């Protein structure tokens, strides 16, 4: 039956056509001639740092379309798990690498450098329908979040608050934000109550807090600024009065103790690849603009210069 084979041939031709179309990148071929850079730079890690690296990857593609830069979201800890075995070249991190992680990196012969890319003010948030809570002291936060905490009602937090139950939202244990918050507030890293809604994806937390009028949660400042209509910022009082996180208070350090630097970690072996070096230069050159755009606080230029210095030293051949 020849018609059947004609149909089959047409089907195969259609698939082949689609695949051929896939290979043909519009516009890319034009730019590709003056950009010989190609290769894949795998990035994973913190969801706090993700918006910065995402923005850099997106802008970088416009200049070097043949360099593939996939950016994953596994949390700082999840990202380091892949980084220390050499699966990724760059790891986003909202805390410094831990000694236990360095140990595994050593076992696998992975050497790395740390580069600071911006400041974050870890933000405590509630639902906009919450009219009674404006500020929490670090002591109150500790009482809420410490392991085994029995604080389940607003009235348990402070006398005078209504007698309603609240629900907690926060990053999961793979998150650097979790590590940092527990260290800064509970004063023991990774010591936290566990009966809260946890996610490695901050967008899930935003949706949780935004949809629950008895919610209380915490995550990176950029996630607040990305959807302020869904959230209400809660000021934090560490003894010197209530301070709301903002570009200014994060920058001048008055939003303490929840202001923190964010990092990228780079596998030194990958610095032998031109496209990785080019990407990192691009990262630092555009950091001020992009860090601000996604809602974080850029570092002073001197600190980006320090990052450039670290890179140059690790490449070995300054240029």
């Amino acid at each position, binding site marked *: 039956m020849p018609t059947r084979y004609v149909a089959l041939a047409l089907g195969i031709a259609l698939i082949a056509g689609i695949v051929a179309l896939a290979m043909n990148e519009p516009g890319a071929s034009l730019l590709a001639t003056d950009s010989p850079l190609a290769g894949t730079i795998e990035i994973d890690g913190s969801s706090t740092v993700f*918006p910065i690296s995402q*923005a850099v*990857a997106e802008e970088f593609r416009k200049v070097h379309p043949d360099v593939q*830069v996939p*950016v994953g979201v596994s949390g700082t800890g999840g990202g380091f798990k892949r980084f220390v075995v050499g699966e990724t070249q760059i790891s986003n991190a909202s805390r410094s690498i831990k000694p236990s992680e360095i140990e595994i990196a050593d076992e696998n012969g992975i050497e790395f450098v740390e580069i600071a890319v911006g400041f974050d003010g870890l933000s405590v948030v509630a639902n906009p329908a919450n009219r009674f809570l404006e500020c929490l002291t670090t002591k109150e936060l500790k009482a809420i979040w410490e392991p085994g905490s029995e604080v389940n009602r607003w009235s348990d937090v402070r006398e005078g608050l209504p007698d309603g139950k609240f629900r907690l939202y926060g990053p999961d244990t793979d998150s650097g934000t979790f590590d940092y918050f527990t260290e800064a507030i509970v004063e023991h890293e990774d010591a936290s109550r566990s009966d809260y809604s946890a996610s490695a994806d901050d967008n899930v937390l935003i949706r949780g807090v*935004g949809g629950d009028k008895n919610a209380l949660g915490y995550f990176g400042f950029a996630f607040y600024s990305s959807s302020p209509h869904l959230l209400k910022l809660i000021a934090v009082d560490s003894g010197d009065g209530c301070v709301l996180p903002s570009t200014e208070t994060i920058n001048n350090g008055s939003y303490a103790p929840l202001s923190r630097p964010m990092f990228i970690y780079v596998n030194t072996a990958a610095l032998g690849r031109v496209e990785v070096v080019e990407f990192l230069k691009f990262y630092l050159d555009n950091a001020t603009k992009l860090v601000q755009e996604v809602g974080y606080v850029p570092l002073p230029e001197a600190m980006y210069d320090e990052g450039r210095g670290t890179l140059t030293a690790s490449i070995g051949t300054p240029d």
Partner: protein
Amino acid sequence: MERQQAPLGSARVTSQIAASVTRPRYSGPTPPVGSATARSPWRRWRDRFFFLLFFASVAIGIFGLAALVIDVLTDGLGTLDFSFINSYPSRHAGESGIRAALFGTIWITVGTAAFAIPIGVATAIYLEEFAPDHWSTRLVQLNIANLAGVPSIIYGILGLALFVQAFALDRSVLAGSLTMTLLILPIVIIVSQEAIKAVPNEFRDAAFALGANRWQVVKTVVLPQAIPGIMSGIILALSRAVGEAAPMLMISSLVFLTFIPSSPGDRFTVLPVQIFNWVSLPQPGFQAVASAGIIVLLAVLLSMNSIAIWIRNRYQKRY
């Protein structure tokens, strides 16, 4: 060296004759047309009741589907244009596009078809035409039927452990295709078996009578008759693979990609994962983007299913 005709045919003939002889025929008294019971109002009410019950069931399904389609169309049609199809995802909702996910889906579908069709059809041919009626065959058959009911996330975890990690394929198109192959293989096998079973035994017997060996019977008689059924079954199985998010979430993970795979070793993302990603973003603009993505996915699925229906209607023969 070709073996002479197998004795299987003769056994089939005997069983067929036996079946036709003992075919049950109604031989009792003719039903009492127009008797008192047939006219009793209770019977009529019962008839009416079940008609309404079944009609309501259909209406619920159709209403649900219509509500979903209308909702998605009103949200997404404004965003859906060629630049949406042809753009990469972006941190800005207005610039986001589905190109990476669309081509990722095409890659995965083609890759899955390349593995699943030969293995699945060959297994079906073996089980239907070659395998002895033995307890081990029945065990294999039982397992295939059970595998078709395993939740898809399990295949995702299996694929992550086996292909991504043990075979060190990384999070590549190849690993994704192999995982999807595992997922749809039981369906492909069962559908192909049904199509092969539907070929009348008389055809086989006639070929055996002419001296064909078993492979010749399969090649010249059974497969040409069964291929339309097999094809439409395979397309339906592939459209299931296109719509699956859970296993691909395990294999590709949530990742920001601004490129399309150019080889089976490249990173990828697929339509359902990209849609999942957009839906989880709290910024308002991304809801429209997600809806536009759903429209594209629905269009892909509907066109695949209509091709399957067209093949079935065009080539199906009844005996």
